[in-house]
């Protein structure tokens, strides 16, 4: 059936979709958001104490994608047969209103400015030959100065807590000395440092690093954002990551944007609407709308629109472009096409320190966005010349609240038994007296790491699954190993009785069975050249100019920072240019 026409269709009700919906309704457009999952509201299912149930939440994946309906296939190399990602483990996409923005932790970074032009910066500093063969190092074609107002806007919407370093060129606080200049303060003061993070802060400073409290989209005090949405002060309950924050303290589309949108008559939200494809006209230069499956009635519905915003999770964006025929699919052999190119992830390893038994780290206390980090080995903040790799990692204590089931299954660490005799002893010591330090780093893009459609497996709607071809590469493994080696002096300075340093091993393959991070990126990257990017600097499709593709899919490289702050800034940046340029004169905003 045809459901008529709306000015703009937005696919996916996560951060990017909610931001675009708010901006486009403000511009006077009628907007329909299509979300394939359920509606979700904190007052209904995020309430206390039902929501803080670890088994139902993080273990049985209450807020995560239901793989029984659709998943991806994964292989490490082009020669392999990809097989389905059958059980959630390595990464955890969200589903339902709020998307991954409902179950995220809340670490809310801007961007390291050097990362936006990483190719140019590496060449300028170390020469063209420094870039390894097969690495698709690229620039974003947008600068920090251009994005700054949109980082500022996103922080005010999210109610972000943090301490600045400089504001308008003047020292304004004890924030990250490597952070770029700001136009304004954070809307809220930094979150308090938990005990383990305060130990890290002192020790890291003593060994000559530059620790700072993480910017967090967890409210350190009551807050009302520019949309009139209210947040309560975080009580460090520890249920951020994987949960929906019963305290209304963690920013989410559900708490910070949708309450304003739901009151707007120009806004329509349709849940249980699984978009099958974006419909294009006969020459594939213009989108006419979308076709979706109404999961309640199992009937196909087509909806027309002048503007289509693809703003689902990173790899769903790429999947939908491939299913719809938007742009040219990437071919790693011929090295042609752009959709699926530069698929990236992040490197993350977690090291552990044990303190004397008189010191309790109370690991259950925490906030997902809070902690203390150093940027001394992130981005281009250190000399890569003698090290011979591209990229870097922030290092941090980010005590988000360790739950007993996950901790127990993960085991005590080190060489301790994971069950049976001796297990309880070691587990009790680890849970009461240890802390963890992460190296949360970049991952570069490579010619033979990419996304395409799987030739064999299909989803519940008879469409091909997306196929990931991904493994770790030497450059990124060596980066991780180097940064982890820099953690050791901190461990010693903290007074650890013992510690275990976790790093990627040389030659290690990507393992889908173990949680690493949900920070997937790329596949529909932004850039200046339509031969190597799927969208232009405004996140507009080079090929179908009334389609915009918003999300971490636009990142040419996996950066060391958590992606949500950058996704939100890019969403506001894109929306601003749609409002001020595109709507007045629809068409390509950058000439190819």
């Amino acid at each position, binding site marked *: 059936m045809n459901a008529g026409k709306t000015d703009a269709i937005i696919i996916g009700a996560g951060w990017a979709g909610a931001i675009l919906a708010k901006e486009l309704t403000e511009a006077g457009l009628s907007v329909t958001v299509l979300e394939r999952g359920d509606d979700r509201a904190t007052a209904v299912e995020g309430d206390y104490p*039902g929501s803080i149930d*670890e088994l139902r939440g993080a273990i049985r994946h209450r807020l995560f994608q239901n793989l029984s309906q659709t*998943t991806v296939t994964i292989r490490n190399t082009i020669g392999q047969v990809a097989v389905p990602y059958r059980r959630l483990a390595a990464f955890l996409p969200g589903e339902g209103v709020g998307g991954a923005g409902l179950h995220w932790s809340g670490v809310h970074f801007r961007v390291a400015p050097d990362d936006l032009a990483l190719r140019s910066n590496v060449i300028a500093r170390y020469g063209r030959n420094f870039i390894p063969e097969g690495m698709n190092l690229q620039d974003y074609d947008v600068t920090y100065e251009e994005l700054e107002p949109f980082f500022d806007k996103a922080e005010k919407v999210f109610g972000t807590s943090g301490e600045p370093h400089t504001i308008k060129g003047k020292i304004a606080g004890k924030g990250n000395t490597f952070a770029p200049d700001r136009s304004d303060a954070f809307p809220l003061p930094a979150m308090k440092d*938990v005990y383990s993070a305060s130990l890290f802060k002192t020790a890291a400073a003593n060994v000559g690093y530059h620790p700072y409290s993480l910017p967090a989209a967890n409210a350190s005090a009551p807050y009302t954002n520019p949309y009139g949405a209210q947040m309560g002060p975080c*009580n460090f*309950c520890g249920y951020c990551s994987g949960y929906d924050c019963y305290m209304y303290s963690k920013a989410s589309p559900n708490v910070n944007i949708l309450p304003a949108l739901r009151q707007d008559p120009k806004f329509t939200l349709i849940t249980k609407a699984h978009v099958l494809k974006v419909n294009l006209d006969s020459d594939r230069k213009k989108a006419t709308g979308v076709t979706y499956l109404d999961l309640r009635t199992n009937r196909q519905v087509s909806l027309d629109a002048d503007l289509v915003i693809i703003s689902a999770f990173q790899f769903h964006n790429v999947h939908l472009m491939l299913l719809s025929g938007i742009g040219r699919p990437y071919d790693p052999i011929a090295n042609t096409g752009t959709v699926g190119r530069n698929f990236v992830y992040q490197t993350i390893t977690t090291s552990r320190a044990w303190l004397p038994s008189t010191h309790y780290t109370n690991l259950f206390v925490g906030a997902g966005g809070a902690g203390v980090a150093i940027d001394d080995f992130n981005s281009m903040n250190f000399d890569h010349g003698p090290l011979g790799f591209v990229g870097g990692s922030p290092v941090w204590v980010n005590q988000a609240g360790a739950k007993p089931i996950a901790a127990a299954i993960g085991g005590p660490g080190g060489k301790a038994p994971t069950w049976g005799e001796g297990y*309880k002893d070691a*587990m009790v010591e680890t849970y009461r007296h240890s802390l963890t330090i992460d190296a949360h780093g970049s991952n570069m893009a490579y010619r033979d790491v990419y996304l395409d459609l799987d030739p064999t497996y299909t989803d519940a709607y008879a469409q091909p699954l997306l196929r990931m071809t991904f493994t770790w590469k030497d450059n990124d493994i060596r980066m991780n190993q180097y940064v982890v080696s820099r953690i050791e002096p901190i461990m010693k300075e903290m007074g650890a009785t013992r510690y275990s340093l976790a790093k990627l091993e040389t030659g290690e393959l990507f393992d889908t*069975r173990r949680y690493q991070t949900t920070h997937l990126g790329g596949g529909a990257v932004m850039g200046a050249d339509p031969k190597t990017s799927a969208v232009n600097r405004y996140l507009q499709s080079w090929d179908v100019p009334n389609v915009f593709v918003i999300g971490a899919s636009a990142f040419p490289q996996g950066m060391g920072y958590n992606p949500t702050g950058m996704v939100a800034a890019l969403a506001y940046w894109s929306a601003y240019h749609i409002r001020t340029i595109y709507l007045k004169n629809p068409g390509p905003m950058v000439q190819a």
Partner: protein
Amino acid sequence: MKRPSSTRRRFLAGLLGSTSFWLYSGHDVWAGSLATETHPYTPRYFTPEEWRFLNAACERIFPTDAHGPGARSLGAPEFIDRQMDTPYGHGALWYMSGPFLTAPANLGYQLSLTPRDIYRQGIAGADAYTRQHHDGRGFADLDAQAQTALLKDLEHGEMSLGAVPAHLLFEQLRQNTLEGVFSDPLYGGNKGLAGWTLLGFPGARADFMDWVNQEGAPYPFGPVSISGETA
């Protein structure tokens, strides 16, 4: 099991003054919680033979010792039996379409077996293996040392159980046992909150405004469950 109703009434009385109580009423957790009060527990999924195996294996994975009760008295077997009737037990949370190919281990689970299948086929295989090697005695009839040795063989995949890889059965047992020990008692395990007490996890307290940084002092309060039980 320690579940004094007066405690629950106190907890409820405390909640009545807050908005949380009214928001909470949409959940059916009370019915599930009450189901745990029937003793002794009669398994719904596992056969009597499987139930004996399960109880013995859970207890070896998380044994009774100087630190406190083991998995059996904590209700982990009951927890696992009840999980078999959930979407999880039926494999409904997993992508279960074929073809099911043999692939490198690092690419993850590639069998068509649900948790119910893994237990049914795996326990039969493990018990048969045990009878062959222990004069016809099943796993539950062996002493603790022999049971532990057999679980180690399972863990390292040093026996064949037909369609179920031995290490798969072991990891299923280990994970579900620990879930039973450390989940809210709502699901039948963690009886008396003894799992949480062992670790020092305060359960559903979920408010640590005053405990962000107490310079390494231990948190002073015991656990509370979702239904208001304390320990």
